[in-house]
């Protein structure tokens, strides 16, 4: 069990902050607010949290879903959030086009596949954690991931 101090918080912000924001971005158009609230909730926890990263992902997921429900624009909200102008990934040399293509492909995926692939590839979560996070079995999570990856492979044939 871990109690969050300033050093650990800084480390977690650096290591997991971007992936958490990308994860929350799959539902809502204000992912930074959701992640910020999740970290504040973590710091105000009266009890020590066993799996801090897993706890953060679950809280971020719930917060993002609630934020999307509160939004008045319910029409294809996940897709509309994905269409926002803010880039999802950092633009590095030679990767800008691939990053834009990746976002374009992911916007067309169902939310279940998107959250699975984000939690796996950029969040680094295990299959068990993803299954617990999404309230499914590990086989279902793995199947969703493979389906999303197949769609991506079509758009990145040389990779």
């Amino acid at each position, binding site marked *: 069990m871990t109690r969050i101090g*300033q050093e650990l918080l*800084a480390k977690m*912000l650096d290591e997991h902050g971007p992936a958490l924001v990308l994860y929350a971005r799959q539902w809502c158009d204000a992912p930074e607010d959701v992640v910020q609230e999740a970290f504040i909730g973590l*710091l105000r926890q009266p009890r020590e949290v066993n799996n801090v990263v897993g706890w953060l992902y679950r809280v971020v997921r719930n917060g993002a879903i609630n934020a999307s429900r509160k939004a008045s624009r319910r029409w294809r909200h996940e897709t509309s959030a994905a269409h926002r102008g803010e880039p999802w*990934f*950092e633009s590095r040399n030679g990767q800008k086009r691939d*990053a834009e293509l990746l976002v374009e492909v992911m916007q067309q995926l169902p939310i279940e596949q998107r959250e699975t692939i984000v939690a796996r590839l950029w969040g680094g979560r295990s299959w068990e954690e993803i299954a617990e996070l999404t309230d499914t079995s590990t086989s279902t999570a793995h199947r969703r991931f493979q389906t999303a990856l197949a769609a991506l*492979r079509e758009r*990145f044939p040389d990779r």
Partner: protein
Amino acid sequence: MIEQDSLTPLEAYLASLKPRSPKLDRDGLMFLAGQASVTYCPTYRTSSFRPVMLSALVAAAVTLAVVTATQSGARIVGSMAAAAQSEPSQERSAPRPTATVAAATGADSLGPVVVWLIGSPPAETSATDSDPNLLRQLKQMLQEEAGVRGPKVEGRSPKAEGQSKRTEAPNSRLQSLIPNP
């Protein structure tokens, strides 16, 4: 993070794309973290130190209060009883103090606080004060005795001697009516 060896080339390439850095209020989070680390004390939170300490202090305070009240009450009653014995005439004329009454009724063992709370019990009264029939009988006997004896005369007659013998009977009756202490 997952191990890069277990990833396919496509997965590894996609994972190499870095998500954009979030615009979080880092300073605010750091302030909250520092605040939480100062106010957090695992010893106090996880143990029952505070409830046990509070219970012990309350028990000690109640015990001390009872002991102090009892001892001071007994001391006051003792001193007042000694004063009352040294000045019996003043005690009769003056009203009886509460502490003395409590001593007579046994309430002194509870202390002056209890006496003050429950009020002073009724003062002790003798049987002669409380029984009007007995008073009446006594008065009647005294009147009879005074009327039979009359003034003392030297060289009494045999008739007077017989009357004096008869007066002894009321005295014995009087003694029987007075209750033993």
